């Protein structure tokens, strides 16, 4: 429902023509703002967080940032493109499993098999579809390309047939459910409900070592910043404007001679690639990938983070995803018995009083300040 009649994007993130500084703000400030913001984010992630947080908290932050990567993708597909992607868990899972399969095989050594296969599958040799993942040159590109290929296949079918709104959301959910059932059913080769656990090494680095955990964090933080830069380029390009146009009035764009299906497809595939990359990095950060992480509930949680943050802005989804994940940890540590109610309450409050998400707080505060100035 929200997908078909989206709220107008907040002024802070409004798409502007690529070569003109946005809005009526003084030119000097707006020129430097994105770069300054980017530098500020980098300083926060690369200097402040590692110094201020313990190893344990930094590892948690690494996990949140992975969720934030998925959110950047959803921000493009849903916030800009109006596609309510309720099945991003599938792409997250494809990336995660591709990476975990490679790491499990690397742990097992050449010719070895992951421990669970002997326990649950009683297999004598590696299944054929596992074999390519032994090579990092296959597995690493696969973490991104596999989700993108699946998204391309699904998207080409769905968008051409003009499936949208609630129907598209339901379809995404069904895909997530189907993938979970498939993984659980093939326990011998996928680890079933347990998933792939106990991942020891990351390309030769021992993941038990806090120094290497820190390295994984830095990689994740770097990738997130890169994805944000990419998202900004997409949003501010001609294509980004077209995407918003498709979201707001698909029929009009069609009559202008564009093919809305291709426009949507690109955003959907990009979002899937980001989710796949997030899944791949989640594995060394957390050491586990399981069906519980990619089913319907986690897929919805990805979207909730974006909604809380503000889906139509660039930073909103990231802030929302991190805030929701952080609140989940903080609340459940403080109130192990009742935190779920508090979390629910938080969602209700944000959606009811801040429909633009956390990102709209800034705009709201600025409007208030301007109004105050006028009154003086």
């Amino acid at each position, binding site marked *: 429902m929200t997908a078909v009649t989206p709220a107008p994007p907040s002024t802070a993130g409004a798409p502007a023509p690529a070569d003109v500084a946005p809005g009526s703000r003084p030119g000097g400030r707006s020129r430097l703002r994105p770069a300054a913001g980017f530098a500020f984010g980098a300083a926060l992630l690369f200097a402040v967080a590692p110094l201020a947080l313990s190893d344990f908290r930094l590892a948690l932050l690494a996990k949140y940032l992975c969720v934030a990567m998925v959110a950047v993708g959803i921000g493009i597909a849903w916030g800009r493109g109006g596609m309510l992607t309720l099945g991003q868990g599938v792409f997250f899972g494809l990336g995660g499993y591709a990476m975990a399969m490679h790491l499990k095989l690397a742990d097992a050594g050449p010719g070895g098999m992951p421990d669970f296969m002997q326990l649950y599958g009683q297999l004598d040799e590696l299944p054929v579809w596992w074999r390519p993942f032994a090579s990092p040159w296959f597995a690493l590109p696969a973490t991104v390309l596999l989700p993108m290929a699946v998204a391309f296949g699904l998207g080409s079918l769905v968008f051409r047939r003009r499936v949208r709104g609630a129907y598209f959301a339901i379809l995404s959910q069904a895909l997530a459910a189907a993938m979970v059932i498939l993984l659980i059913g093939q326990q011998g080769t996928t680890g079933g409900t347990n*998933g792939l*656990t106990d991942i020891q090494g990351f390309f030769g680095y021992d993941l038990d070592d806090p120094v290497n955990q820190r390295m994984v964090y830095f990689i994740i933080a770097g990738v997130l910043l*890169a994805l944000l830069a990419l998202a900004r380029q997409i949003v501010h390009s001609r294509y980004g404007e077209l995407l918003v146009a498709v979201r707001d009035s698909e029929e009009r764009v069609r009559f202008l001679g564009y093919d809305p299906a291709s426009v949507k497809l690109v955003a959907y595939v990009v979002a899937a690639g980001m989710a796949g990359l997030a899944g791949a990095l989640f594995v060394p950060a957390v050491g586990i990938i399981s069906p519980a992480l990619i089913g319907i509930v986690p897929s919805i949680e990805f979207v909730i983070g974006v909604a809380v943050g503000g889906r139509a802005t660039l930073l909103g989804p990231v802030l929302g995803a991190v805030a929701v994940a952080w609140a989940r940890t903080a609340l459940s540590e403080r109130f192990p018995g009742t935190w779920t109610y508090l979390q629910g309450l938080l969602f209700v409050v944000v959606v009811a009083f801040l429909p633009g998400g956390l990102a709209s707080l800034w705009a709201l505060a600025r409007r208030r300040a301007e109004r105050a100035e006028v009154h003086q």
Partner: protein
Amino acid sequence: MSLLWGRRILAGAMILVAAVAVTACGSKTSDEGGAAGVTADVSGDTVKVGLLNSLSGTMAISEVTVRDSIMLAVEEINAAGGVLGKKIQPIGEDGASDWPTFAEKAEKLISEDRVAAVFGCWTSASRKAVKPVFEKNKALLFYPVQYEGLEQSPYIFYTGATTNQQIVPGLDYLKAQGTKSVYLVGSDYVFPRTANKIIKAYAAANGMTVVGEDYAPLGSTEFGTIVNKVRSSGAKAVFNTLNGDSNVAFFKEYKSAGLTAAAMPVVSVSIAEEEVKSIGTQYLEGQLTAWNYYQTTPGAANGKFVAAYKAKYGADKPTSDPMEAAYVSVYLWKAMVEKAGAFDVEKVRGASDGITFEAPEGLVTVDGKTQHIAKTARIGKVGADGLITEVWNSGKPIAPDPYLKTYPWASGLS
């Protein structure tokens, strides 16, 4: 022009980021003591222990009862003077029925709270998720639930039954009753699938036939098809490894299809007193269960446990096998610590072999090698009052054998 400038800064920042990432790169060798384990904080006059159970999500209904009985044991021990003169301070965390959350909370309990031991986990998936965390930090987990075996972590004590203390005796019982054919019904996850693998190996070696095998997704309530298949299969008994809510739907369907405990008994391994209450006695009366403990198990130790539990949590609250195993695990930890004379994990592990405890289920003994405990197997029948009464027991505690190495028919399993 403006965007070009922005892009330059952007590119600069990216290079900076890459440089930091590269210089921050880790060491390939971990011999500088990177993974050296966190020592528990026992400096004060209390010792912290972690309680890691799902207080929310689908598993909460079962795991909260385990949490309650761990708390009971902690209070009893504190009232009697604590462990090595220190009062136990329990720190609860919610695993939220979500396996990565279990891993996160385990890490938090170990490295932030610096607990001496953690009690909890229920599903195999949650145990598999936390196992690397405990092994990495060299910290202790006491796992209180019967499980599918095939595991032996040096940092986990398994106080529930492994397969040779629950499933194999259940099959022995069916065999002694002259049952020649069984139908396997289970939830779709690791425990039922592994258990059924073991059952099929047992059946093949003992002249039984497995006439059918069906899995329902966890939480599924659609059992019409499965029950029809069971009915037309002509099996003499059903071996049920369904978990949670699915049992309610399954047994309702079973009864309405005209199947009875007398004609085709169902042996369940995940239905204890608490579940009988929620499924409804009318659907379960006469059906069989395989466990190591029932509320009705005779003995002074159990009388005391049941009375204390009901006094604390209410007269209508039943006690069950996982609750008892959790209660016992706290006492076993206390005995190990006292024998070791220290809270140090390696010393506690070293002291574990041969520790005995007069548990509500009868005498239990810790096997230091497998870190499982010797337990008496008990087959029970659900009565009209919702309680389960024993119809057979193994006579003496069965030594744990998580990999079924002493059973010739199981040689191909591990």
